[in-house]
């Protein structure tokens, strides 16, 4: 009991080191393939200057960003500064960033699944997964989950990050043929026509109307999903925290 005050004996001095800056919400991938930071808090965001072009797929968390271009896979920090770049197959990738900094990528064209650990070259986990991989997520420190579509039926497949072996597969509730995003806790975010649905692991679902059918969903930032549309409709973001879900528009940088 008497230890507790001592535990915090240096806190006041430490608090004086507080830093104040602009809140960083994550990143935005625009329809031209430019990736840039986005600042602010939800609903009053402000885009920053693009730092990368030719981006096909991206995922951003509070700490890291994974970026897939036509020929490379990149890891960037929270400021979108380049940390590492490796050659990669052409085409899009499904990307995942775990809470502990682990990351993974699935190259759609070659159907290869790789794990990314720090600045080390990506480690191949599997050369193929059954069906079409729609989304992946790092589920803790040992597993990676993937949403796959086999013959039109969706499954949640759990894969060992150590061996790449499929640990289990379970049928998922029917999800429409639109884009899908999978969160580490098993929450599914998927497009269903001109709606976006958030399906929690317990079965609770929330739906929001979109201005048009979603073309892609990506991790924009911590608890933020970015939703892109076909030309003619501006991007929106979906706040994902339970109880605070909402859709709002995201401004883009002037061209």
């Amino acid at each position, binding site marked *: 009991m008497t230890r507790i005050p001592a535990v915090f004996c240096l806190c006041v001095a430490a608090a004086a080191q507080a*830093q104040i800056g602009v809140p960083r919400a994550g990143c935005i991938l625009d329809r031209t393939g430019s990736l840039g930071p986005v600042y602010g808090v939800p609903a*009053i965001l402000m885009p920053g200057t693009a730092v990368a072009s030719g981006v096909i797929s991206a995922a951003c968390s509070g700490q890291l960003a994974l970026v897939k271009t036509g020929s490379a896979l990149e890891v960037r920090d929270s400021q979108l500064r380049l940390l590492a770049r490796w050659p990669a197959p052409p085409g899009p990738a499904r990307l995942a960033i775990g809470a502990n900094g682990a990351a993974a990528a699935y190259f759609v064209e070659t159907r290869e699944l790789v794990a990314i650990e720090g600045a080390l070259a990506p480690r191949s986990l599997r050369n193929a997964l059954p069906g079409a991989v729609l989304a992946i997520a790092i589920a803790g420190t040992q597993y990676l989950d993937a949403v796959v579509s086999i013959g039109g039926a969706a499954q949640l497949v759990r894969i060992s990050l150590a061996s790449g072996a499929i640990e289990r597969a379970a049928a998922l509730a029917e999800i429409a043929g639109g884009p899908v995003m999978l969160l580490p806790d098993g929450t599914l975010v998927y497009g269903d026509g001109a709606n976006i649905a958030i399906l929690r692991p317990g079965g609770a679902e929330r739906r929001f109307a979109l201005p048009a059918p979603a073309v892609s969903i990506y991790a924009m930032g911590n608890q933020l999903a970015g939703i892109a549309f076909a030309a003619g409709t501006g991007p929106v973001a979906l706040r994902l925290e339970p109880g605070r879900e909402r859709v709002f528009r995201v401004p883009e940088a002037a061209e």
Partner: protein
Amino acid sequence: MTGRAAIWMLLACSAALAQLQLTDSTGNAYAPGQAIDLGGIGTAGTTAAFQITNTGTAGVTLNTLTIQGQGFSLALSGTPPPALPLTLDTTASLSFTVTLTPSGVGAYSATLSINQNSYLVFANVLPFHIAVTPGTLESGQQATVSVVFDVVPASADAGTLEWDFQAPPGGAAGDMGMGLLLPAPSNELVPPRGSVAFNIGAGQNAAQFVIDSSGDTAASLTFQTGSTAGTVLFTVALGGDSTQASFPIAPAPVWMDTILLNTGPGAITLDVSGWDNTRSASQVSFTFLDSGGNILGGGPISADVSSDFEEYFQNPPLGGEFELRAAFVVTGDTSQVNSVTVQFTNSAGVSSANATIAAE
């Protein structure tokens, strides 16, 4: 009555009237005989609030408070509303509203009488009005604005919508998170002051904003309210008519949108993202709790952050938005920490928010 008596009576009335000051809801004062312009309004009508204050040094009896004019009505505020005559003691005030319920478009006028004094009240009822959703604005929102025609025009026309974010007197402007969010293909956030042209076709009931040079239009525009207290003012000009609608964004206690609490060996870090639309944050306190809700460390850890925030808000890139990162050096077992309560104080009040340890 003799001439001298009449003069004395006039002087006596003027002395009494001079004690009653008429003001509107924005604080504008009206001298006796002055006109009161309710502006261009839609066919749904409008209600304007006023106040009569005894600014003299002696009580004044209010015998008459009426309005005469087609479509106008007057109501005293209060439950139940006071009856006349009544005496207003010195510094006392009486609130009332004037409502115009028009029967159609056109010019409306009325005479407002306060004892022996009178004021001309007038309004121009237009076939359109400015519609903002939601009707009450606050910081951190996205809202929409449109120009709705209550009387469908018989012929095509064109006009402009101007918008202006107005910081309060002495307040800080410069909020790049506030502004109109143009529709695709632009998707740009344009600054907190500007204008956009619109067209209205014959038989249409909503203006179509011209959003780019190729002629693309939209029936409503989204705008971000930003993170600075003030007023959003919209002005529509169409032909020779114009109308304004102002939407206040009230000063608010600090809004903490997200708090990320992380612990590690010998350290606790906190990231607090939010906004302070008064830009006056002065005090912050952190109370760490264990999983049983017991306060750790003997109580809140408080800090005076006024100079830090004052410096940050000197030239803020995003209005009142901020991220505060606080690092605590700890000499014991940080795994005891389960949650934190953060409390902020600014000129609008005190706010608090809780966060638990971020999931691994």
